[in-house]
Each structure stands twice: as structure tokens, then as C-alpha cells.
């Protein structure tokens, strides 16, 4: 499988992270992280479990606060803006959770309507219904519209989770372990969906994963989190063409010959 190339749409930064620190008690997770996400690209963040990948994207959407450092999303300092401004910013940043986080007590349609009707109160019932059907069609799951989350497979839940974020038409997508716990075929489908979302909705994305097949399939650029910092960034080949003992086992496990 060919790895993807960096985007050529210029170098406009939609997310800039400078010198970011985060600790939980005495456990330091992020130790001076620097990162940029450029408009239109898919950036894959790789790293072992527990290295702070999910913490990083939770800081980006303001679910966690950093101990130090700057997080600038669409030209706004996340840690300095008011709650109202943060809510407005969150409309432009979609977040797809590792376990999909679908609302168990609601049907698929209600899950999708939930953020839409609360953020765009001027929409008519017909317009809301149309928006729901459009995004469900985009993820290929229009037929599940009246189903409950408990009736869906793992892959379907991931897709609905992505659809729920897409309904707000975000500029940035953050995917937390999109292929975790899925079979290889469903993983390929999710990888294709992430690329489709990038092309169809013109989003810039950060994809958190430790699945190298996913990284290779969706990433225009790859950044590897090692010891609390991004020490290796570049194309997939650039990152893994190394003798670094912290990186090699990662590659060998995923692509063992």
C-alpha cells in the first residue's frame, strides 16, 4: 500500500501547539509538545498507549486544560477564550470518540439531531431531517436512521459517531483511535471514510492511532509522540526510516514480514 503524500494546499496553520505541558499528579504526559496542523491535511499522531495522544486532542477542544503552553485553534487561544467563545469554536471542531460515545437512550436520528437543533435553532423540522439524512448517506448508513445504538455493530457505531460530528459541518476533525477494536475489513472502510470526509467536506484532521495501516492509508503527514514530545514528524517513510529503537518495534509489530 502506497503511503499518502503531503497536501499542496499551502501552509495555513489551523492548529498550532507550542511548548505544551500536561501532567496528572506526578505523572508528566506531555513534556513540551510542538505541533502544527495545516489546512486540508490529515495529520496522523502515532504513539504507544498512555503516551498522551488522546490527552492532546482533548486539550485542543478544551475538555482538558494544559499546565503550560499555547494551543491556538483557528487563530484563537483555547485556554484564554470565554466559555461562550469556546462553544462557538467547538462548532468548527468535530471530535470522533474512540468508543463512538453515542447517546444510548436515543435513536441514530436523535443522536444526529441533538447537536444540530441546539446549535441551529432557526432550522425547520424538514431541514433538520434533510441534514440528518445527508450525513447518514455520506457515511453509508441511511438505513439505520431509526435504530438504537445498541443495535449497531462496532464499525457502524464509529460511522454514526463521525456522522454526528459532520452534521455541524466542522472545519477540523479530530479522530480518537478510529480503527481501535475493529476487524481489518472494517478498518479499511473507516480509513476510506476518513479520506472521503477530507475530500468531500474539505476538513483538516488529526487522527490519533497506533494502527500503522491506518496511518499509512490516511495520513498526509505523520507525527510520532515519544517520551512526551513529537520527536519525529514527516511523511510515513520519513518517520519510520530510522534506527531509533523506540520507533523500530512499532513498525516491526505492525508490518512483520
Amino acid at each position, binding site marked *: 500500500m502506497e503511503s499518502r503524500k503531503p497536501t499542496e494546499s499551502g501552509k495555513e496553520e489551523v492548529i498550532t501547539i507550542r511548548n505544551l505541558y500536561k501532567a496528572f499528579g*506526578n505523572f508528566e504526559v506531555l513534556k513540551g509538545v510542538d505541533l502544527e496542523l495545516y489546512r486540508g491535511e490529515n495529520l496522523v499522531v502515532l504513539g504507544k498507549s498512555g503516551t498522551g495522544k488522546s490527552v492532546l486532542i482533548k486539550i485542543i477542544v478544551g475538555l482538558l486544560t494544559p499546565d*503550560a503552553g499555547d494551543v491556538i485553534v483557528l487563530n484563537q487561544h483555547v485556554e484564554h477564550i470565554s466559555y461562550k467563545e469556546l462553544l462557538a469554536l467547538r462548532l468548527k471542531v468535530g471530535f470522533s*470518540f474512540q468508543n463512538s*460515545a453515542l447517546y444510548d437512550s436515543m435513536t441514530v436520528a436523535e443522536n444526529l439531531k441533538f447537536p444540530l437543533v*441546539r446549535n441551529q435553532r432557526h432550522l425547520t423540522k424538514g431541514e433538520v431531517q434533510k441534514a440528518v439524512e445527508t450525513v447518514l448517506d455520506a457515511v453509508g448508513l441511511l438505513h439505520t436512521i431509526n435504530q438504537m445504538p445498541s443495535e449497531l455493530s462496532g464499525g457502524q457505531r464509529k460511522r454514526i459517531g463521525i456522522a454526528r460530528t459532520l452534521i455541524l459541518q466542522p472545519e477540523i476533525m479530530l479522530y480518537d483511535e478510529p480503527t481501535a477494536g475493529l476487524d481489518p475489513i472494517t478498518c479499511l472502510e473507516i480509513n476510506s471514510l476518513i479520506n472521503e470526509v477530507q475530500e468531500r467536506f474539505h476538513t483538516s484532521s488529526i487522527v490519533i492511532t497506533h494502527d500503522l495501516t491506518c496511518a499509512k492509508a490516511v495520513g498526509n503527514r505523520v507525527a510520532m509522540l515519544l517520551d512526551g514530545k513529537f520527536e519525529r514528524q514527516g511523511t510515513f517513510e520519513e518517520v519510520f526510516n530510522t534506527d531509533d529503537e523506540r520507533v523500530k518495534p512499532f513498525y516491526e509489530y505492525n508490518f512483520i514480514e
Partner: protein
Amino acid sequence: MDKNPETSTVLKKEVKSPGKLTRMFLTLYEVYQFVLRFFKEAFLPPYEGKELLRQCYDIGYRSLLLISTTGFITGMVFTKQSRPSLAEFGATSWLPSLVAIALLRTLAPLLTSLIAAGKVGSSIGAELGSMRVTEQIDAMEVSATNPFKFLVTTRVLASTITIPILTFYTGLVGMLGALLNVWLSEGTGATLFFQMALESITFLDIIASTLKAVLFGFTIGIVGCYQGYNSSKGTEGVGKAANSSVVIGMFLIFIEEVISVQFFALFRS
């Protein structure tokens, strides 16, 4: 926030976990903020009317069978147990008054609230706790909606509105249980029974009972929501949230009962 990593106190100093007393005060402060936020969110638009109605239905209608059974049995048993004492003074005709006062002043609010603390409080704690650990609350947060308003405000308001209604329903059903017992033993008719019962009840009894039920309902809702909304540590946290909702809820209800009895006694004397 210190932005310079070289001087960051968070990074350079050992983070000490707070002691028991400090933790207790921190928790009290968190509860205070939680209650304050509830009042702020409850009065500020937009309102979640549809969800509020759904919660009222869930809390009220689904507790009816349990409340009816318990209320009826309590009324009947209380009457039966009280009869011998009154019979010693030849005062069995006072049974309707005695039951009415006991039910309205204490038994109905307390019984309804304790049942609700077990059924509703645990259900709220477990539901919100499970939503917290499965990141559903975070999902609401990142989609620019207000999970506190949707989940907490509606549930606390629903239990505050519904528990007083259920309390009067319990009182009524308890009176029916008492009537059955009195009718079987003394042959007293329903009209006479209710006439004697209503004559003994004062306006203060009704006000006191309503206010107590409102307070108990609010307590059940806020405790369940606080425990669930702030739960952590996976499935263990969900169980803990459900359990604490019941235990703390019941404990607070008893404390409030003791205080309210003393308080309303001031108006009776």
C-alpha cells in the same frame, strides 16, 4: 497559568494529594458550585421543556406501582397497629384523624422520598455515571451543547416537581388503606372517615408537607446528579455513583426531616 516550563510549579514541584479534611472541604465547595450552577442553568434560556416532561414521566409514572403498594400497606398496617393503644382509652373513633395527621405530616413525605431515593436516585446516579464513563457527556460538551442543562437541570427539576405530587398521592392511597382497615373493623363509612380525617388537618400541615416534599425531591435529584455527573473510574465508578446517590440521599432526607419537624413546630405552638 505559568506558561514558562522552566518555572512551572506544576512540573517542578511534587504534587501532594490533599488530606482528608481538605478533601472534605473541596468536595463541599464542589457541591456548592454544582448547586449554584443548577439555579443559574434552571432560570436561563434555552429551556429543555421536552426533556423535563420526559423526566417527570420517568420519575413519576414509573414509580406509581411501587408507591401505591407501599402507601396502601403502610396506611392499613399503621391503622391496625394504632388501634390497640387507642382502644385502651376508648378512642378508636379518632383513628381517621390520627392516620391523616401521621400520613400528611411525616409518613407520606418520608416514605415517598425514601422510595424515590432508592429508585430514582440510584437510577439517575447510574445513568449519568455510565454516560460520564462512556464519554457521552464529553460528546455533548464537544458538540457545543450544554450537557448540564440537558442532563442535570431537567432531572433535578423533575424530581423537585414530581416528589410533592407523589407525596400527596401516597397520602391518599395510605388513607384508602386505613379506610379499608377501619371499615372492616368498625364498619365506618368512607364519607365519615374522610370527614373526620380532613377536619383534623390544618393548612399548616399541607404547607409543611409540600415544602418538605419539595426539599426532599430537590435533594434526591441533586445528589443523584452530582454523584453521576462527577463519577470516574469506569464501571466501578458507576456502581459507586448509584450506591452513593441512595445512601447520601437517604441520609440527607432524614437530617432534613429532623430539622423541618423542629422548624414547623415553631409555627404550631
